[in-house]
């Protein structure tokens, strides 16, 4: 066990720093706030031309998108999680643009690289990783949430086109997206997992309507997408017809270890710890309250466990070990922690927690109230907590698969 980086990696860190000093200034950094800040504030992703130019250079050096071949604009490097960690650290310190966030770069690009045609890769990959083409994900439907494979949006072949009818929901960023990668039922007579195709849809296609969906937080970050006789070229199919389920699952293989998954909880926790020192409850700082102290330390232990768990996963990944249970618990563990930390924030705020985000009298402009509500959003999104429990029990502990959920699955 050694938590320092070897001389070889320290030298690599120097190279990264030199690259940054040459190509990214503090003035540039003011133009494009780092991705995680922007994410916390919400709103559309903005990409400045300077950031695009920088990303292009960083790809040439192999610092970004190592899993994307050079001929599609990527960095093309063999996987090296330690180097990736150093790059992420140094880029963050100088607020240099890292890989684009969003479902296009993280989900569509690896899928296209594995299953796309040469034309599809040429058309979409470079534009997506540089932030010129923005994507949304057309998966969930009103009747198909946890049971995604029951989806009913219908695609029929008509000459050289697909004609698509149906509705998608929870579609993040649909209002800003240029394209949607979409799961569509094209083989109505096949068993449910075998009747789905993975199709790319231009958001400007006639018949496609986006309607914002207001959440319990009061803001509208999701959308409903209605498809009425939406006609797209047949060649927008990714992978084989009827194999969309497998194509969409291939993304999972590319998901890198959830390094830094605790980072949002850390930010909220540090905020709560500060707040507890500066908030008076009945004449004394909240931090002096025995119950608050106890809960704060209890959560800090869980938070540290989660952060060190990230180190462990990084090490496993660097050694080429199978992550197994360590990765399976990541989502449930980090989202449960996020919920607990946000709950403590509410309790430390006491009566001030009743003030909504944006209210000037609310501690931190109500950011913690917002974090409290969003902690439930992330507990549900991308596979609810109970779905995660099924995955942990079945894949991690080897308990029998749910009979209904595996019906018709090969």
């Amino acid at each position, binding site marked *: *066990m050694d938590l320092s980086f070897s001389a070889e990696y320290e030298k690599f860190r120097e190279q990264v720093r030199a690259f940054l000093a040459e190509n990214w200034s503090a003035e540039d950094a003011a133009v494009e706030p780092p991705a995680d800040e922007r994410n916390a504030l919400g709103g559309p992703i903005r990409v400045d031309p300077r950031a695009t130019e920088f990303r292009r250079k960083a790809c040439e050096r192999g610092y970004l998108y190592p899993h994307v071949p050079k001929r599609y604009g990527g960095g093309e490097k063999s996987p090296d999680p330690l180097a990736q960690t150093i790059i992420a650290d140094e880029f963050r310190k100088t607020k240099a643009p890292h890989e684009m966030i969003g479902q296009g770069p993280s989900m569509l690009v690896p899928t296209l690289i594995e299953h796309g045609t040469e034309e599809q890769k040429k058309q979409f990959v470079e534009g997506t990783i540089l932030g010129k083409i923005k994507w949304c994900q057309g998966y969930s439907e009103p009747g198909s949430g946890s049971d995604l494979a029951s989806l009913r949006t219908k695609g029929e072949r008509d000459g050289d086109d697909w004609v698509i009818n149906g509705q998608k929901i929870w579609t993040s960023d649909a209002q800003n997206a240029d394209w949607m990668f979409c799961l569509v039922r094209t083989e109505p007579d096949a068993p449910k997992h075998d009747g789905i195709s993975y199709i790319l849809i231009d958001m400007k296609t006639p018949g496609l309507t986006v309607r914002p969906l207001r959440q319990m937080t009061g803001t509208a970050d999701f959308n409903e997408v209605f498809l009425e006789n939406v006609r797209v070229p047949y060649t927008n199919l990714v992978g084989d017809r009827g194999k969309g389920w497998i194509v969409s699952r291939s993304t999972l293989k590319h998901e890198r270890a959830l390094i830094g998954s605790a980072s949002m909880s850390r930010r909220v926790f540090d905020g709560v710890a500060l707040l507890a020192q500066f908030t008076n409850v009945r004449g004394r700082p909240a931090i002096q309250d025995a119950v608050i102290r106890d809960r704060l330390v209890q959560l800090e232990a*869980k938070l540290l466990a989660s952060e060190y768990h990230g180190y*462990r996963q990084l090490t496993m990944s660097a050694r080429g070990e199978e992550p197994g249970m360590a990765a399976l618990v990541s989502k449930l*563990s980090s989202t449960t922690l996020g919920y607990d930390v946000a709950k403590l924030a509410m309790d430390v705020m006491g009566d001030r927690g009743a003030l909504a985000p944006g209210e000037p009298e609310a501690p931190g402009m109500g950011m913690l109230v917002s974090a409290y509500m969003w902690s439930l959003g992330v507990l549900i999104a991308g596979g609810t907590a*109970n779905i995660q429990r099924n995955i942990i029990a079945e894949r991690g*502990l080897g308990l029998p698969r749910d009979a209904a959920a595996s019906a018709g699955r090969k």
Partner: protein
Amino acid sequence: MDFGLSQDQVLLKDTIRRFLDAECPTSRVRSVMEGPTGHDPALWQGLVSLGVTGLAVPADFGGAGLELLDLALAAEELGYNATPGPFLASALAAIAIAEGGSEAQKKRWLPRLADGTALGTFALGEADGVWAPEDVVVEAKGGKLSGAKALVPNGAIADVIVVAARGEKGPGLFLAERAASGVTAGDYNGVDMTRRLSHLKFEGTPAEAMPGGLAAAGRTRDAALVLLAADAYGGCRRMLDMTTRYAKQREQFGQTIGAFQAVKHQLANLACELEPSLSLWWYAAHAFDAIRDQSERHAALAKSHMTDVYDRFARDTTELHGGIGFTWEYDLHLWFRRAIYDRSLFGDATFQRERAAGLAGW
């Protein structure tokens, strides 16, 4: 940057695990724990020959000179197995002497603790829940100890006792032998029958001051917290293994109970609690030797967190077993009892968290 075990450490764990699987099935655990002393010299000799007793003893004094992490990995495996006997007690005596003893004291005791010819213990606790070395009231004046120590691990069979006591210059560590005059030792009837707890009374017992003093007492306490956390993790792993296996075998309503979501989710929650907790005690153990400024606080965090998790495991896994889990005959209660020992000794979770809050400046 490498936050994982070395090949040697993996091998160490495997070796101990294989030895205990073969030599210490629960039938032997039960016969030792129901015996008069809770100690089995033959089993102990087996652990000695694997090098377990000398892992963290400096190489100059007959040990392997490894780190607390290595010792904690052994504690994890002993915890998995519910191994009875004085492992924790003797390991803490060795750490206390290595950290705070004079050259002569080290030379006299460390080789014997490493080769198993002597047993040791660390007597810290006192009445009224005292577990902080600075709060002890047992006196060491003029080279003589007087007062009572409570909940001392395997104190009645230890040859050498490291006593946290208040000397002329304040609280510190003192070395006494159980065979010395004025020592009365006896065992409590403890919940965990695999690790005996003793009460010790000193009446003018000759004792030598240890130069490491209060700082060494604190370090030994930190080591105890880490070793208890590692034991708790091992115990949790065992309870999860046993319960998962049971859920795959036991049939009710015409199917294995492991197919019911209620059962699956309860087990998944346990796995989700356990998996990241490993990294917390690993870090605390590593910090003891390598990141000293974080060591004290991390030991408190690891102990409090891990024993909370163990408590939850003990209750949930027993519940998941149904009636069989509540019987004396079924082995699960061996770990249920060890969970209670781990959370009670050297300061409970609430006390450790209050310490950690103070250490953060809160």
